[in-house]
């Protein structure tokens, strides 16, 4: 007799109380001594909720975006500090140390786009920030915390990639030069050398806007999802040329976010079809379809220990413990 199929996985637990659609998620591993990680969520109505994973309850609510959707959250090691980006065209820097939750600085953004920012935290003192720039196709690079503009990355006139949709700053182990991966409205992904302000390479991955991308710098391999029915896996060769390695066709169109787990074993893709799909990162073999939400899944995030959080238009955040972390 054939073994019965494994039952579909269940969330470990579900966080309720965001009170509007969840658009951003980020695990904060907690400063030394604080132990338990926190989960941060950003909502459609502009609030950031800080959840204790120990009690599974909100420990603090941050209101800094005038009721406008919070699209991106990122913590910085110093402080600890939190960056939150909102559709109110503001990027807030929060001080979260010792239970404080005050805005200590903010950056005014010049583009209404949907593009989330990206951070490259080099030294403890200074860090680099990439955000959508003034021109609709531009990316602006700032040095923080001084907010000094480093440069603006504008594609050549004939390229016409449209708006930047998603960004990822990174640095190769071999070179100190900061690099930026950007997914564009026309479905292409480009690699920028920030210092020389030049596009190293650009490749068409999708026929629809790129909604999310993640990059595994050790394998020099990345993945992107778009409004269409495919996930694209691409790689970077030693000449820093991007190349599409393969595409993975999905049942339904629309991927809002993709994330590779820190141990680089699995990949999670947030679907407009209310589902989260999990793949083996090396082989892209589909491992599981997480069916729990009753609306579009807007964002996914992994904790250092492998815990997966997914945020949805149904106002819920589900937390999953899948395939033990290595």
């Amino acid at each position: 007799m054939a073994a019965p199929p494994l039952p579909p996985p269940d969330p470990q637990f579900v966080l309720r109380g965001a009170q509007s659609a969840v658009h951003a998620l980020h695990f904060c591993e907690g400063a030394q001594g604080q132990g338990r990680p926190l989960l941060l969520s950003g909502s459609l109505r502009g609030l950031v909720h800080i959840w204790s994973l120990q009690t599974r309850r909100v420990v603090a609510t941050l209101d800094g975006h005038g009721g406008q959707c919070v699209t991106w959250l990122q913590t910085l090691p110093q402080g600890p500090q939190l960056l939150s980006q909102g559709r109110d065209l503001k990027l807030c820097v929060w001080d979260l140390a010792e239970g404080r939750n005050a805005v200590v600085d903010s950056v005014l953004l010049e583009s209404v786009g949907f593009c989330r920012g990206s951070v490259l935290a080099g030294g403890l003192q200074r860090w680099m920030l990439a955000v959508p720039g003034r021109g609709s196709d531009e990316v602006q690079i700032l040095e923080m915390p001084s907010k000094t503009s480093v440069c603006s990355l504008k594609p050549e006139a004939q390229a016409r990639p449209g708006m930047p949709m998603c960004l990822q700053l990174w640095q190769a182990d071999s070179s100190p030069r900061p690099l930026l991966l950007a997914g564009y409205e026309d479905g292409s992904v480009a690699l920028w050398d920030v210092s020389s302000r030049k596009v190293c390479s650009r490749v068409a991955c999708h026929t629809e806007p790129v909604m999310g991308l993640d990059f595994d710098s050790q394998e020099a391999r990345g993945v992107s999802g778009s409004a269409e029915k495919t996930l694209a896996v691409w790689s970077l060769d030693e000449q820093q040329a991007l190349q599409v390695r393969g595409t993975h066709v999905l049942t339904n169109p629309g991927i809002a976010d993709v994330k590779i787990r820190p141990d680089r074993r699995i990949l999670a893709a947030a679907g407009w079809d209310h589902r989260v799909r999990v793949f083996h990162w090396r082989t892209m073999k589909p491992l599981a379809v997480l069916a729990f939400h009753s609306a579009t899944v807007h964002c996914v995030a992994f904790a250092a220990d492998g815990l997966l959080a997914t945020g949805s238009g149904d106002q819920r955040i589900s937390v999953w413990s899948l395939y033990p972390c290595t």
Partner: protein
Amino acid sequence: MAVFDTPEEAFGVLRPICVQLTKTQTVENVERLQAQLQVVSDSALQELQQYILFPLRFTLKTPGPKREHLIQSVVECITLVLSSTCVKEQELLQELFSELSACLYSPNSQKPAAASEELKLAVIQGLNEKVVVGSRAFADILSENLHSLATSLPRLMNSQDDQGRFSTLSLLLGYLKLLGPKVNFVLNSVAHLQRLSKALIQVLELDVTDIKIVEERHWNSEHLSTSPETSASRPWAQMQRRYFRFFTDERVFLLLRQVCQLLGFYGNLYLLVDHFMELYHESVVYRKQAAMILNELVVGAAGLGVENLHEKHIKTNPEELREIVTSILEEYTSQENWYLVTCLEAEEVGEELTMMRSGLQALASGAHTCQATSPPTFSKPSPTICSMNSNIWQICIQLEGIGHFAHALGIDFRLLLMSALYPVLEKAGDQTLLISQAAISAMMDICQACGYDSLQQLINQNSDYLVNGISLNLRHLSLHPHTPKVLEVMLQNSDASLLPLVADVVQDVLTTLDQFYDKRTTSFVSVLHALLAALEEQSDPPEVDENDTDPGVPPPLPVQIQIATDVMERCIHLMSDKSLKIRLKVLDVLDLCVVVLQSHKNQLLPLAHRAWPSLVHRLTNDDPLAVLRAFKVLRTLGGKCGDFLRSRFCKDVLPKLAGSLVSQAPISARAGPVYFHTLAFKLQLAVLQGLGPLCERLDLGEGDLNKVADACLIYLSAKQPVKLQEAARSFLIHKVKALGY
């Protein structure tokens, strides 16, 4: 009752017997001295302490063979003196200590003295608390003694009577108290730990043959209004009365618990919990006892009810204790240990194959315990009853453990509520009386330990944890058939602040209901009823601020209106269910929906329109009980939307009802007493009773009213059964009122 208060008086009384004892050392003389001591005041005793101890110590020290009984009575007498006085000189203390220790240990043989357990017990009690603990040589002696007692313990527990067991266990307790943290020397020996645990497991075996346990049923779920008792000073010490196979003396059980608590307090908790957890897993034969022991180990580890004689001993740290408790809790509430078959009713086991299968396994594996436990003199109850009893006790013991754990962790237990509260609440609604009692008492414990004023507050403030469990379990309803019950209890205890949370889970409930229409309708309809009852209680229609609303976009519906709309939608389908019980309940839910929706006519009227045909069917073609409920719904509806109802009622319902009243009248006029039991009679009565208040409420016109009145008039005849006459008269009074006379 001291008669002699001054040392002078006391000396006069005690001197002769002390002299006598020094001369002739017999049990009788010791007992006489002991008797005299009872009438001497403590202060006088303190003055004469050394004088009285002299003949006693002299007896211990006299060379030559000693009769054990004499020694024992001497030691008991010394204990009495020491317990009422204070040893002020260091020298005396040391001498006494070594003299008493010698009774436990014979220096020549390098082995524990071959003294009886009673004697050792007397010595231990004499040494206990009054003597400085910490002598190394003494610890070695005790350790040696404990080793040997552990070895013989299983045999002693098996062969002794209750009095003997009491003495042996008292001795064991004494050793543990005196050894303190050094008890680990003994526990670290695998062989000795096994002997010790074997004895405990064996003696704690329950008698599970009592049929009443399975039979006692619990029907009422409105029991959660009680507040936790704060008067109990040692709440962890309370428990349900249980019956053991090998002993009846309650004191033996008390000692066993203390032994386990001391082990938990001084022993290596990880080692002990691992050991007894293994036994818990090993066999259903050990499971209940192992759980009892685990429960007490945790109580002891937290230092509850344990008097620490060893200042240097450090209690288990709270973080570690929490980890240990979490792991035990996980085990207790796991699918295979929490969902055991405890009754054979169809609604419990019949519906779900999965439940049935796991249940049968539990039955099969439980069967042989029972044969071992049945007393041979009585007719053997069926193994099924025994194994169900055994399962009931296992659940009760585990519930009791959860209550203990709460006290052990105190406010820290709040962190465990996310996993503990749901399973406990689930059992609070269990049909077996013993289980629901144990669950409620566990919840009381939790309230007290975590600082909640009432069970309602406990449930209310942790509804997020409950909703999480409910929503995840609804995904696998066949594995968790009691989920709707938990939601129902939660709803009964929730207030308006939980509305968003409730709204969230209601969507899950409705989705699940849509998938399981056939199988689980009863429990879901109960949930819907509890839900609407809660909404009705909380519904203060919020004032809509006209200035604030965008005229183009209709404002979003309030949560409770959205919920009531969704539920009423389902009621339309469920109103024609084949089960009368369900139809009745659905009519009640429908009635509540109408109440909640009264301020939202735009939602209510279309739904009422769709519900109408089925409602008419209930009124004109259903059981009398359903007719009455349907009338009630119409009355409620009539109060909210009379215009909508009036013409439809006069067109669709009134002629049929009036017609049937007219055609039935000659039959009931001729009928004998048997007729009162017929459906026809009950229907006549229901219609006559229902029409009056409804017609009044609907404000019917005179023409329509007269149609009904004509039908009712026939029933005023003296030939009609009295009840029908009364109902008709009552209707006509309503009519008079309706016409405004």
